[in-house]
């Protein structure tokens, strides 16, 4: 029963504190929004994807499947950015391709590729978190390190267990309604009514189960004691430090290269891109 995109391999990436992997998304996003360039987002994408394949021992096929949703987004973004690119005064608009009313220029294509790579890098950084962190571990880390209220945290964890149950139940309800002769298709009016028909039994059993879980947790003294201990402490370990250091050095090297190549102008938010010669 697979749930979400999490891939269980028990690797060293999996054993990192969930928050370590979670916070990485923030500086990555920040740097990448500031830098418009092809090399930097490409290197960042590579960093995260390679980390997943090697450190995370995520099979290439699973990684590929997780990247799949990016494909339509990437293609769409590439096309719209390139097609609607406004040439700057400093640039010579060499036309690369002409498609009906659309003129694709080289600067436009380069800019579009850099934008797509930037989104890919941010997506890859969140995959590093999503593919190697079980949601339960993440909530546990929030409870232990960020003082998320215990009742809320464990409530979320219990609710998460219901997700596969609910989807199985939805399949059953649909089958049950079909047996009784409710057609699956139907026009604009039929669809919402049908969905409402699914929602009622789903809600009824969801609420019932949630109540049962709440009572079961109360019966085991959840939150009854102001101070609670933890069997499995999610600490920041040496490997967390090592991973953060590796990430930091990688970032510094990439940014140094960027500056060394004489391109501080590329740290540029408001003006458009320039072309590498």
């Amino acid at each position, binding site marked *: 029963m697979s749930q979400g995109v999490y891939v269980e391999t028990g690797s060293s990436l999996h054993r990192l504190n969930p928050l370590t992997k979670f916070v990485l998304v923030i500086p990555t996003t920040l740097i990448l929004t500031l830098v418009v360039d092809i090399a930097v987002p490409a290197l960042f994408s590579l960093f995260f994807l390679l980390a997943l394949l090697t450190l995370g021992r995520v099979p290439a096929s699973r990684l590929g499947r997780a990247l799949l949703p990016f494909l339509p987004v990437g293609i769409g973004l590439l096309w719209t950015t390139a097609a609607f690119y406004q040439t700057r005064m400093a640039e010579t608009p060499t036309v690369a391709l002409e498609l009906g009313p659309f003129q694709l220029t080289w600067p436009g294509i380069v800019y579009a590729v850099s934008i797509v790579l930037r989104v890919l890098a941010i997506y890859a950084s969140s995959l590093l978190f999503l593919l190697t962190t079980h949601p339960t571990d993440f909530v546990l880390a929030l409870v232990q390190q960020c003082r998320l209220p215990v009742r809320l945290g464990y409530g979320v964890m219990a609710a998460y267990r219901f997700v596969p149950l609910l989807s199985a*139940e939805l399949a059953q309800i649909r089958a049950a309604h079909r047996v009784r002769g*409710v057609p699956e298709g139907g026009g604009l009016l039929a669809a919402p009514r049908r969905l409402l028909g699914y929602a009622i*039994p789903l809600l009824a059993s969801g609420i019932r189960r949630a109540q049962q879980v709440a009572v079961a947790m109360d019966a*085991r003294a959840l939150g009854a004691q102001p101070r609670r201990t933890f*069997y499995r402490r999610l600490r920041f370990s040496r490997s967390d430090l090592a991973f953060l250091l590796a990430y930091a050095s990688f970032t510094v090297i990439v940014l140094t290269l960027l500056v060394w190549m004489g391109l501080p102008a590329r740290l540029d938010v408001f003006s458009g891109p320039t072309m590498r010669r």
Partner: protein
Amino acid sequence: MLSPSLASAGPRSSCEPAIRVEGLTVKYPGRKRPALVRVSFSVQPGELVLVLGPSGCGKSTLALCLNGVIPHAIAATMEGRVRVVGLDTRQVPLSRLSEKVGVVFQDPEAQFCLLTVEEEVAFGLENLGVPPDEMPGRIAAALELIGLAELRERRIDRLSGGQKQRLALACVLAMGPEILVLDEPTAHLDPQAAAELFATLARLKAAGRHTIVVIEHRLDDLMPLVDRVLLFGPEGRLLAEGAPRELFAAYRQELDRFGIWIPQVTELAFRLAEAGVEIDRLPLTVEEAAETLAPRLGRARRHWPHMVDPPERQPAVEVRRLSYRYPSGPQALREVSLLIPEGSFFALVGPNGAGKSTLALHLVGVLEPPPEAVWLLGRPLRAYGRQELPRVASYVFQNPEHQFLTSTVHDEVAFGLRAQGIADREVETRVRAALEEFGLAALALAHPFTLSQGEKRRLSVATALVLRPRLLILDEPTFGQDRRTTALIMTRLRELVRSGGTVVAITHDLRLVAEEASAASVLVAGRVAFAGPVAELLGSAPLLRQAGLVPPPLVRLGRRLAEWADGLPPLSTVEHYLVALGAER
């Protein structure tokens, strides 16, 4: 309320009782009537007490009162007093009470919140603030006690239902309670898993460290452990308490009237006694029944009245090498071939996930079979039109709520008839007759979701039977039902079969199989492991084990008796015993 002859036969001690309940009345906000009314009883340390009562009689409420969830965590008004190991539940905080009283609930899917077995066991200890270095020892001890030590690091979602229930037991045991309360712990388990849970209970009881209160209606394997029974009436009142043998004898009428299950061998003894067989001691277990009945075997009939095989009829259903894989899942069916004769009651059994429902959904066209793979009444299923199929084949799902489409009981029954374009006047007559037959006439205007469990089940069967289908498929029709609803539904199904209809029941309930079905098929991992007469299935222990089943009590009793009397045919139903013991009326 306690008649002297029914006084406890359980172990007594002069010290403080483990549980003392005095004048307990509980009322939930927004309800007219209280869930429990002036209930008083006590339980001695080391006793195992069985709580019986019709559904909705407040048994679960009682469980929540014993560990203090009422009144501490649930807003209900509580009068009277509950003392557990000397502590007044009202005065002692929940954290302290949960170290004294552990509760296991019925749904294995609704008791956990963590990932692995050991973390889940640790959860209660964490809540109590137990130092982390003490935890591994306590976790190991609890898992050892219930036989899950090897699964310590296993993910909970990979456990079977039975393992989950034993884990729930381990979770409360780790907290070190003296009192265990189990609220229908086997309701969601297959017979094999239930037997394992009872075996675990037997070990706990033998160890003698716990006082145990069990709410349960699968009784045959539990009876050897029961010291005393508390019998509740429908209004949340304690009707009687006493040793099981005496209580069952004295309150037989009430047990019948409220539809409360009693051990099958006890029920058999009542029926035999009615038919004139001398029963000197009411049996509660298979062993006791064997001892009671063995002396009567002298007169037992060795020559079984030969059953005339039903004449060969056309198959109602023919499945030809049907395979199916769910789009994103495992292979559910592998080359399944099956013949279901018309006019028969056919049982489809097998462990959870064996493909029973998948197969059944192909028979009503919800899952579309390949062109020639499923035949219905001599025609390929695919040849039936969209409108035509629901007139021929109906399906009753395990959870009745899943099938409800309208907002009144009346419309629910009328829905299928109206969809067939039947005239209003005829719809009205047929609906009224169906509501009458299923005891739902007074509820015609109620919303289906407000019905009780038994009423919902009766309604879902009524909505299917009112269409007069030639083929009716039912998924676990007896699941969670009391004796009355079960008997009513079986009567209606028998009528359908008698009139030439075909019933296919997906079930784990071997009593149902033994009493009603003529033929059965066992599905294991998507393949047909057996198809043939029910007697053959009941006689094969390996086959039953493959299907997650255990021989039902009356079959086990038959085998024990056969050791005394050579040539005794295999007995599996009350009717068989009536014939065999010469008590045919």
